[in-house]
């Protein structure tokens, strides 16, 4: 079975074709980062306008790259949420109408399910069940994954997502958008120990209040950086690098500690890490180390598939279509959509 995947949930247009026997045949991404750069964040209306201009030309190119004729495609998957409603509608309308014209099934995919399954695009994919850490621009959560569509959240952020914290901190440091890669690059030149930021909700032995458990909090960390930056006044490039490193270490520590506790609590044998922040090399190194210590195998997508892409949507679509799931031509999107509301294909 061969599935065409379309991702348009935020500011990236992604298209890919995945074949159940041959694997990934082609994938392309059109990033709108430059378009939104002047606005200090993603402007939903501009994002939607760009998707409707770029999606079909990109799709044509991917078909050519893959050497696919229309008759070779057996199903279409598109991101149905969560995300920007106007942006999601472009991909949904294009995917559904194309499936209608080709007389093949279409399926709407949960964007976070796409991220969660993205390590399966790599050789030697993780088998179910596993523990998953999803860390992206809009989500930070730990989930117990039993199988396709069977996701139970065991911990999540009570405020900012980790990626959001990277983006906001980068803005504070004047490093531009998206902040994750910018902070990671700056941190390479940082010297450790000059600054130390808090690791929120990681003190297991607090004398007051309940134990912090597996939930996350990043807004206090962002505030701590803001306070330090204000105290410093002007920032030279070495100071920026030192702050970036200290911030990155704090986030990586928090994520690693929570993964450790989750492994202890669930007895998981595999840890799957996905979403934009999973591209971070310090995080990868740290979690690999943790995995060795606990004899837990750790899986990541290739860095290019950590952030939004069409391949993960094509792959999730393949699994669902193979299980007999499809959406009627009467489609809709869900700007807000909890991953726990997904169900296993029956």
């Amino acid at each position, binding site marked *: 079975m061969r599935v065409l995947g379309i991702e348009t949930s935020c500011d990236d247009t992604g298209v890919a074709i995945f074949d159940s026997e041959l694997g990934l045949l082609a994938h392309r991404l059109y990033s709108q980062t430059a378009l939104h750069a*002047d*606005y*200090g964040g993603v*402007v939903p*209306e*501009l994002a*939607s*306008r760009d998707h*409707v*201009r770029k*999606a*079909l*030309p990109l*799709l*044509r190119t991917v078909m050519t790259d893959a050497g696919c004729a*229309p008759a070779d495609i057996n199903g279409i998957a598109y991101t149905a949420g969560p995300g920007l*409603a*106007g942006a999601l*509608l*472009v*991909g*949904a*309308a*294009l*995917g*559904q*109408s*194309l*499936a*209608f*014209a*080709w007389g093949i099934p279409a399926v709407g995919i949960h964007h976070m399910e796409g991220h969660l399954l993205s390590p399966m695009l790599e050789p030697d994919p993780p088998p179910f069940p596993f523990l998953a850490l999803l860390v992206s621009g809009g989500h930070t959560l730990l989930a117990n994954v039993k199988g396709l569509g069977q996701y139970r959240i065991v911990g999540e952020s009570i405020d900012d997502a980790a990626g959001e914290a990277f983006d906001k901190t980068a803005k504070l440091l004047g490093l531009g958008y998206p902040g994750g890669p910018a902070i990671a690059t700056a941190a390479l030149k940082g010297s450790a120990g000059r600054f130390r930021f808090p690791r929120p909700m990681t003190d297991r032995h607090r004398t007051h209040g309940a134990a912090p458990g597996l939930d996350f909090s990043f807004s206090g960390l962002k505030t701590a950086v803001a306070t330090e930056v204000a105290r410093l006044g002007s920032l030279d490039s070495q100071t920026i690098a030192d702050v970036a490193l200290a911030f990155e270490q704090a986030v990586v520590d928090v994520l690693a500690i929570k993964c450790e506790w989750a492994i202890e609590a669930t007895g998981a044998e595999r840890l799957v890490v996905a979403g934009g922040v999973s591209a971070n090399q310090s995080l990868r190194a740290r979690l690999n180390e943790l995995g060795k210590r606990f004899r837990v195998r750790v899986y990541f997508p290739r860095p290019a598939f950590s952030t939004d892409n069409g391949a993960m949507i094509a792959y999730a679509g393949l699994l669902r279509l193979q299980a007999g799931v499809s959406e*009627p*031509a*009467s*489609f*809709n*999107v869900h700007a807000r959509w909890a991953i726990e509301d997904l169900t296993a294909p029956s």
Partner: protein
Amino acid sequence: MKLLALDTSTDICSVALMIGSNMRERDISGMRHAESILPSVQALLAEGGITLGKLDAIAFGRGPGSFTSLRIGAAVVQGLAFGADIPVLPVSSLAALAQSTDAERVLTALDARMGQVYTASFLRGEDGLMRSIGAETVCAPDDVPLPDGTDWTGAGSGWDKYSDLLCQRIGARLKEWLPALFPRARGVAALAMPGLAAGEALAPEQALPVYLRDDVARKAGR
């Protein structure tokens, strides 16, 4: 000639199928564009006993109008046209609105929110089709460009919402205004025919909205 047409520029979306001189149309009301547009297309094609691939082209109301709805329409047209390997024909939603009247001279105004309307004026040609005179603009009702001469008929949601302001603005040039009119797919189909005959149909990825309003975001620090 065989043409599928749709308009999604307003809350009421419609789909039409034109086979020779035979026209069928379906309305979808209540902002249920995404849920209803493909099932409506399917029903119309079945009624007409035709498949997508047998059509000569797909015409669509390219706007102006509601941004999100326009994009649903454009993306659906892109997918259908690319999938069936047929070309597309963009038609002004304001022209389609004018085409919904029986009048000879029509001053269209579609509600553009934010105290503005999308507007243009149209004259009916000998072939019965509306042709615009002057450009399409987005402006406040009191700034609507004044059409030349008299006997103008007002039409569109802009008139429904701002009739007092618009009547005052147009003054003696106005003959009447007609309530509750909107762009319709049958008008889109009729207006697309000459272009189709003249070989002006475009590639599917050219099915793009015309928004008229482009100042949708403010840059940081301004």
